[in-house]
């Protein structure tokens, strides 16, 4: 049977055209402009080679700080979401807990809120004087713990990452639960007959069998973390100062200053980082398929 006839090429055309016009083309134009001095102040655009890239990686630029923040944000939120999501998944699949479906739904529900709403709500809840959290802490006598969560330079980044984990952990939990439910209970029965403890079972049965799912979850978390914008924009807009600035808030700032070339250069750096990571992750997934 002729494969090209049975699976005609034009089936891919719609997705390809739409993606090319509204995703690939603007992306490419952006990357090309990163080699110029494109800005809002003159209509003249000159080719400047790698000057923008050198400016970013020049030792004492503030951009290094943004790139560092982005990486810290990605690593910390990925680990927190995976560990908490995993713990919750184990808790909410165990026989001991009642009303499991209800708990799962509640913990997933922040996922359906828009970042704008999350930002508005937490900005008000974490307000130092009128916010819910500090009022609550004061009312139970923990006056010293009532801090300025979103304005203190040392506290603000951990606060933002905690809110992000609050929103994202439910999704990770739900995906891991699906994985846990697909593991046959025979393994656990055999292991408990052999006298394996909970931790031994977790380390030798659950984690190895969940590996593909954990890889998928990591792809989602890492690509999200590196490109985070809405969360930080709506909570702190990168402030105070540039304490919570990440690559994408810096891109936004450069664009609104009219510094188009610099913004698009930062975007391009991010693109290269994400694409490289994605390449290695997809390659490692393909190898596994062959093994199976």
């Amino acid at each position: 049977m002729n494969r090209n006839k049975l699976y005609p090429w034009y089936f891919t055309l719609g997705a390809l055209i739409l993606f090319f016009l509204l995703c690939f083309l603007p992306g490419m134009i952006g990357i090309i402009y990163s080699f110029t001095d494109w800005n809002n102040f003159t209509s003249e655009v000159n080719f400047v080679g790698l000057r923008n890239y050198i400016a970013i990686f020049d030792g004492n630029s503030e951009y290094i700080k943004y790139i560092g923040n982005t990486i810290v944000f990605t690593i910390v939120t990925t680990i927190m979401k995976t560990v908490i999501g995993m713990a919750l998944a184990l808790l909410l699949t165990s026989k001991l807990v009642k009303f499991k479906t209800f708990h799962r739904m509640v913990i997933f529900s922040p996922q359906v809120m828009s970042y704008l709403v999350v930002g508005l709500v937490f900005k008000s809840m974490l307000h130092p004087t009128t916010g819910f959290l500090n009022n609550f802490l004061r009312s139970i006598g923990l006056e010293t713990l009532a801090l300025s969560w979103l304005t203190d330079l040392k506290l603000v980044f951990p606060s933002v990452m905690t809110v992000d984990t609050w929103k994202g952990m439910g999704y990770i939990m739900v995906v891991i639960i699906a994985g846990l439910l697909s593991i046959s209970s025979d393994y656990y029965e055999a292991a408990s007959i052999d006298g394996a403890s909970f931790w031994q079972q977790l380390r030798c049965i659950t984690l190895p069998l969940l590996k593909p799912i954990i890889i998928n979850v990591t792809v989602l978390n890492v690509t999200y973390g590196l490109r985070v914008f809405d969360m930080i924009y709506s909570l702190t807009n990168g402030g105070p100062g540039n304490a919570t600035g990440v690559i994408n808030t810096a891109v936004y700032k450069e664009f609104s200053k009219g510094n188009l070339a610099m913004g698009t250069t930062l975007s391009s750096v991010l693109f290269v980082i994400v694409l490289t990571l994605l390449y290695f992750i997809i390659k490692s997934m393909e190898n596994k398929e062959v093994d199976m």
Partner: protein
Amino acid sequence: MENYKKLIKGLVGNLLAILTSLIVMLPLVVLFINSFKTSGEANKMSLALPEKWMFENYAVVIEQGKLVSSFFNGLIYATFSVIIIIILVSAASFVISRNFKGINKFVYYFIIAGIAMPINNVALMKVMQALNLVNTRHGIILLYAAINIPLSLFLCYGFIGTIPREIDEAAVIDGCTPIKLFIGIIVPLLKPIISTLFVLNFMAVWNDFTMPLYYLNNSKQWPMTLAVYNFFGAFENSWNLVSADIILTLLPVLLIFVIGQKYIVGGVSAGAVKG
């Protein structure tokens, strides 16, 4: 002794689950309670029940926040872009997955690389202007469809690989044309992944607020998220109204989520278990 230990374990487990649920729910509960208060009371944002239940807050919000028209705008954008995504992505990933070589392989990696592609709004604006898509409803629908194609294709491609190829061959022997084969036989089998794509993309489009900010100037075309943004700007000091506004915008997505929760989980893990 053994029973005693089990009882304690059960108690601790249940307490942990309840505590986590409470922490997660807290912001929503605070919002809900505050949406019934007077604006003076609501500025404290506490868990105390309102002294007088102000149901009229909701009426004020619906009228002032232009919620009805923005609700339908959001619904139109989300529904149509999701339909476009599902049609284009399922057709493309069917052919790519079944005939994974040459040009199809290239098309797959080409589109998948788009997952990493940053959205450059200045360049995108130029392209949108050239195509006459700025400030139009179909423009924003096509834009949402385009930016969500890469991840959807990635998920759908993984799922189609689990459908045995023998089905296609049997259908062709029975005289099916490719289009008949796809619509009549493959699409019904894709139901789980289609439901997942529907729910995930619907939530993504419904919750987005940056795209309309750039590409829709006319407030008559704004979806609900942007209406909240605007509403917050105008009523910053009336947290009771802002809370009611937020609760009303959350309702449709929560509803979709409750109806579709079985599929959200199903599809993501269908791709994942295979990966």
